[in-house]
């Protein structure tokens, strides 16, 4: 079958997005990229914390373009602009009866509800799965919680940084001294965002077959623990407890990062086979190394990796990190420069694959946006729509989706249930 103009993968799907912070918003960002209509719900008194404060003080930690909060700081924080791309913004105060009714009306015209509140919040708002699914039995409710919908810790709170701990990842991340370290990039959050997307795809498929919606119960801690599978199996059989091992690897050697020309510049090298080891010796132009008994097989290289690292570093320190990668890879050695946030947006490989979207946000000007962790040959991602200003789509959504009159909308604004200016 050939197709003339490709349709977006998720065209026609409408997502009611109550999520905030990182994991949920990342999932809905991907949904938006693939053509779903995403309606982001916030209230004027409780914006997505990604938006920061309505009036940030001088010590505020949020990141604004060039440090300038501007006139509407809540519409231009780095986190908001980056994670809430491809969404429409609707403000509703869910703590009011009128707001709650509006949400229940929205549920009737949406396919999916996504939320990542503390476990009990939606029930407390009178918007738990039983309530919303009775409004729309075809609704898929994606509940992304810290610990899952059940169990003694179901109502515990977490951040990506605490999930790294409670999910076990911190216990195997660190230098060789055994001190656990955190990623500072809340690593579980993007992982949960990416998996949530697939969870939703399987739920949509289930709805195609059964005609019924369902609850998807996703525990962020469980997802994090999945990343330690082999260490869990190993412990369950041998009793060995996995520990931090810097950048060393159980199988590969040499394996680590090596200093290059320039300040804080590094190249990563991972040698797993004898061919790759010989390639490394060739790349270094050091053929004696290849016949050095201290490094003659994987076991010896593991045992003597400190000495080997020093020899490799003597070569890398004279190299540009990109040049080092190209030379090593031309000899079949897995390697890459350790890129920083400025370098990765100009990397020629990502550039040639069209990974970054250049987005001209009305509040921040053009910037390079993370896109999707996949490329589909016949379902391309859509043209990005900049992250919305708070309440930017109130009027459109309230009239078109809910059929409210101008008068009714004016009342909602007067009563503080919707609007565009956050409350202090």
């Amino acid at each position: 079958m050939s197709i003339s103009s490709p349709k977006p993968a998720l065209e026609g799907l409408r997502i009611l997005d109550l999520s905030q912070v990182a994991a949920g918003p990342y999932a809905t960002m991907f949904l938006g990229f693939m053509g779903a209509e995403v309606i982001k719900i916030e209230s004027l008194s409780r914006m997505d914390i990604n938006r920061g404060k309505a009036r940030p003080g001088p010590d505020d930690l949020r990141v604004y373009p060039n440090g300038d909060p501007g006139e509407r700081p809540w519409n231009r924080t780095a986190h908001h602009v980056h994670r809430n791309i491809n969404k429409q913004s609707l403000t509703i105060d869910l703590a009011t009866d009128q707001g709650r009714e509006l949400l229940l009306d929205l549920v009737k015209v949406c396919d999916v509800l996504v939320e990542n509140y503390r476990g009990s919040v939606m029930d407390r708002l009178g918007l738990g799965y039983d309530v919303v699914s009775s409004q729309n039995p075809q609704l898929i409710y994606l509940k992304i919680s810290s610990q899952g919908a059940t169990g003694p810790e179901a109502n515990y709170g977490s951040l990506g940084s605490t999930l790294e701990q409670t999910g076990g990842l911190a216990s195997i991340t660190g230098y060789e001294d055994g001190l656990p370290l955190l990623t500072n990039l809340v690593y579980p959050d993007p992982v949960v965002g990416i998996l949530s997307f697939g969870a939703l795809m399987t739920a949509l498929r289930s709805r195609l077959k059964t005609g019924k919606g369902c609850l998807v119960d996703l525990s962020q801690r469980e997802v994090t623990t999945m990343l330690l599978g082999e260490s869990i199996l190993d412990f369950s059989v041998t009793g060995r407890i996995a520990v931090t091992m810097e950048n060393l690897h159980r199988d590969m050697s040499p394996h680590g990062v090596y200093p290059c020309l320039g300040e804080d510049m590094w190249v990563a090298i991972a040698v797993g086979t004898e061919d790759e080891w010989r390639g490394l010796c060739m790349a270094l132009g050091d053929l004696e190394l290849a016949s050095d008994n201290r490094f003659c097989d994987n076991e010896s290289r593991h045992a003597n990796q400190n000495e080997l690292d020093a020899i490799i570093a003597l070569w890398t320190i004279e190299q540009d990190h990109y040049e080092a990668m190209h030379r090593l890879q031309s000899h079949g050695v897995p390697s890459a420069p350790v890129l920083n946030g400025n370098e990765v947006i100009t990397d020629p490989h990502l550039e040639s694959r069209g990974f970054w979207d250049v987005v001209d946000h009305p509040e921040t000007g053009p910037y390079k946006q993370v896109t999707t962790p996949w490329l589909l040959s016949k379902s391309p991602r859509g043209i990005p729509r900049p992250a919305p200003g708070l309440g930017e789509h109130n009027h459109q959504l309230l009239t078109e989706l809910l059929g409210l009159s101008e008068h009714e909308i004016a009342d909602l604004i007067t009563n503080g249930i919707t609007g565009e200016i956050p409350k202090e």
Partner: protein
Amino acid sequence: MDNLLSDINVLDLSQGVSGPFCAKLLAGWGADVIKVEPPYTGDPCRSSKPFFQTIDHSQASALFSYINTSKKSVTLDPFVPSHAQAIMKLAQNCDVLIESFPPGYLTACGLGYSDIADSCHDLVYVSVTPFGQTGPYSAYKGSDLIAQAAGALMYTIGLPDRPPLKVGGEAALYTTGISAFSATTMAIYVKDTQGFGQHVDISAMEVMAVSQLYSSIYAQFGRPLARRGSNLVRAKDGWVSPGLETGVQESTWLKVCELIEKPELVNDSRFITQESRRANQDALLVVISDWAVRKPKEEIYHTLQSLRTITGYVATVEDLLMSQQFVDREFFKLVGGESLPNTIQPGAPYRIADNSWEISQAPRLGEHNEEILCQGLGYSMTELGLEVS
């Protein structure tokens, strides 16, 4: 039994961690997965540490045992023409094909996307590689470390005066497999709703560039991220992040002062508001540390969480298996072994209605040759040059 993907057939030609992990997730939701491995040597992952003590060395890897559950194994080499033909036959009966060869390799074997899609237009063909199918690095080799380096993840992890540090284990490769799973299930949904298959291109570097949650945007907005230490403090038996230096409500702070038996702190101007606690967080951490070092980490975790404080404790793999939360949710599954020991494994990545997660022991090398190649396709082992083991 009807499960989310029980009508989906998958041919898994991939090796290592990422592609096979994607296939494992599909198998867990009921897809029928045939894993194709190189004859005699098998997936190199079979020789990856850590190892169990087993009689059959190809079954000894904990890593392999984890990421190949609920699959069948056949041994075929796509480079051998008769084997390529058998792979083509298997592919024609499949909904999804997953592969992880260097870009172009399977095309040279007559098994590239267009070779198969010509006759199976609704096939979802998933390529999982270090750098993707196109672009200047597409032929380059990768690994977990390489992906974390190239995707700008590890630059900001670790301490300022030490080298960049990777997230432990095979986290980047698992995340790449999860990305492949999400993309594959999306392509299956598109096949169901729009009637065509397609080529899915997964690059580990791009998965990491997506996972550096804000390094690239912070750099562009003028505040580049740097490596920094953690806020973990020592408990009696490990490490915790009490989470008190930020975000604690005023009313909670009173209870915390009581809890740590320092009522006088309520009037300490350094800690009197949320802002001042944030501004004086180093001093606060010292106060908290004095208390925490005398308490077990999980006691601190539960006590502070009960005050609605976002607290963490560093769980080891042993702690994970003991976690009452995991026990209560039956997250871990006991996977019975025939030729290898019983193992405890993470179970469902999420729960959907009454669908149940399927998990059975990873296959022996070529365990299903007879069933799939001989009974299914009508080959003889000799014809394929495969000895019956």
